[in-house]
């Protein structure tokens, strides 16, 4: 209860608009990390090119709204659809490749998309980026940071329910069978190609949605935000939270996004990026299971196990 309250009143307690903005960014990252947990953690299809989908989503939504003059919801829809289409294309190599080779392919895909974004000046305005992407508004009222915060929390809750539904169904079981042993899964009648496309599609759709949110939240997009280092960061978030845990993305993204802010003491300006990356590295090396299982165990120990806690846990991680 306490934690649910904390989530609801977070922007009212923290009155600093910048911190709410950082929280919003971390919630957007959480969407991508959730997609990665589904794709990498449950279906075993590694992807190191998610910044590409993030970028495609952001640019699609911004350009549909700015150039074609469609309403913003159409931009969101276009972003998701285009990302899913690209992901079907990207999932074709995964029929033959896995592990390191698949990760190299996805890295190559991410770089190609980035190079195209930088060089296609007519469409994307190149390295200068696109300015003046309109903010979201409901019933004529433009959303501020707090409004975005509630919208993102609601979206993430919906996405979480979606993922939980999927992983608890036959699709999720097929994903896990495919992850553990592809040959055995195929022998048991799992059409791995279909499920690979599905896994890629779900996580790319999430990333596209996140990209659209990002474009309309910040109002300015440039290729800088979609470099390879971002893809690495997204996977790092998923692993920090716990790749094989449903809440992994929701736990990992806020932590990884907020770490540099925590180290931002006066006089430490040069060190904070290094300290944050070192800490994430140590978490991954020494706790490969991630933080979500740890938090879950701690939570259960304090409050006892119970069904009604399930909802609370989602919020706890959002609030942290």
């Amino acid at each position, binding site marked *: 209860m306490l934690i649910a309250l904390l989530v609801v009143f977070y922007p009212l307690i923290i009155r600093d608009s910048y911190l709410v903005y950082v929280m919003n960014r971390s919630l957007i990252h959480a969407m991508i990390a959730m997609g990665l947990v589904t794709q*990498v953690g449950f279906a075993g299809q*590694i992807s*190191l090119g998610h910044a590409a989908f993030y970028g495609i989503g952001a640019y699609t939504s911004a350009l549909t709204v700015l150039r074609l003059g469609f309403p913003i919801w159409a931009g969101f829809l276009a972003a998701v659809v285009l990302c899913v289409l690209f992901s079907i294309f990207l999932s074709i*190599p995964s029929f*033959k*490749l896995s*592990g*390191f*080779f698949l*990760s*190299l*392919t996805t*890295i*190559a*895909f991410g*770089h*190609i998309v980035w*190079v195209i974004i*930088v*060089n296609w000046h007519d469409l994307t305005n190149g390295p200068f980026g696109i300015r003046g992407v309109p903010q979201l508004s409901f019933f004529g009222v433009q959303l501020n940071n707090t409004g975005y915060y509630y919208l993102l929390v609601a979206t993430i809750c919906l996405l979480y329910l979606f993922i939980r539904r999927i992983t608890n169904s036959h699709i999720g079981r097929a994903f896990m069978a495919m992850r553990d042993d592809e040959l055995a899964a195929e022998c048991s009648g799992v059409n791995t190609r279909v499920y690979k496309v599905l896994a890629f599609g779900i996580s790319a759709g999430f990333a596209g949605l996140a990209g659209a949110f990002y474009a309309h939240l910040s109002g300015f997009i440039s290729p800088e935000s979609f470099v*390879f*280092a971002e893809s*690495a*960061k997204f*996977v*790092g978030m998923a*692993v920090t939270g716990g*790749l094989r845990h449903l809440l992994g993305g929701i736990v990992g993204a806020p932590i990884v996004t907020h770490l540099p802010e925590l180290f931002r003491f006066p006089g430490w300006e*040069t*060190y904070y*990026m*290094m300290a944050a*990356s*070192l800490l*994430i*590295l140590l978490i*991954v*090396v*020494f706790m*490969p299971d991630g933080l979500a299982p740890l938090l879950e165990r701690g939570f259960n120990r304090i409050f006892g196990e119970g069904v009604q806690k399930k909802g609370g846990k989602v919020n706890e991680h959002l609030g942290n």
Partner: protein
Amino acid sequence: MFHMVLQNSIAGMAIGLLYGIIGIGVCLFWQTTGLINFAHISSAMLGAYLFYTFNVMWNFPIVVSFALAIALVACYGIFILRGVVHKQIMKRRGGRLEFIVATMLLNTFMVNLVIVIWGGVPYPFPRIFGSPMRPLRIGRVAVQHHSLWVLLFVTALVIGLNYFFKRTLTGKALRATAQNRDTASLMGVEVEKMTSLSFALSTGITALAGILLAPIYFVSVELGGGIIGIKGFASAVIGGLTNPFGALIGGLLIGLAENFAVFYISSSYRDVITFVLLVFFLVARPQGLFKRM
């Protein structure tokens, strides 16, 4: 026209051989561990920065700073990569995925560390490999002194590695470990030591590539920024991953393709060539250029 083509081929070959050296490091690593190290390129960056520090800042002689830089990067390979990252992940039964993510994050950390220690501004590399303004002219073809130096180093490296793997006992033990760890350890090879040695070799060779790349890319964090690393992976994949000298050929192919793409198409899409080649080889010929299925 012909002399332009020739000049381009030589320049492309020089940079391609450097990608090939990085690829050799990738291959050596893959052979003994069955893993790909995504922090591989950080050793090239470290090598260049350490060489710069020793040679320019502290005025050590060139040969001494060369040896010191490579030795220190090899130590980084043994103690950080092998001692901390690899061992801890293996101990916790982590798989390929954990290793990929951990090495990627290690690379990010090394880049941030370099920015903290040396600052983010690129340093010009000292002109020990000749000035780019005064190339060697053979007829109408201009050849950079740097290209000749690269050729010299690669030849020395190939001869040295060949001697090491074919003639010395340690080299043979290393090859035995790569072929079959269990059998090798039954034959009295210290497998753990050999794994550490292969980490040191792989990072040391990459450091050499980093120092040789520095005149082109400057001593900058761009050396650790990923794209050059991908080119190293690509040349290793084209060569077939198990064949270190195949990686050199793969690197040559990439370097030539890149230079001619710049010459005939446009420089903005230069890097795309590498990625397309990489994906093509992964999907169509995963066993590399030379081997049959």
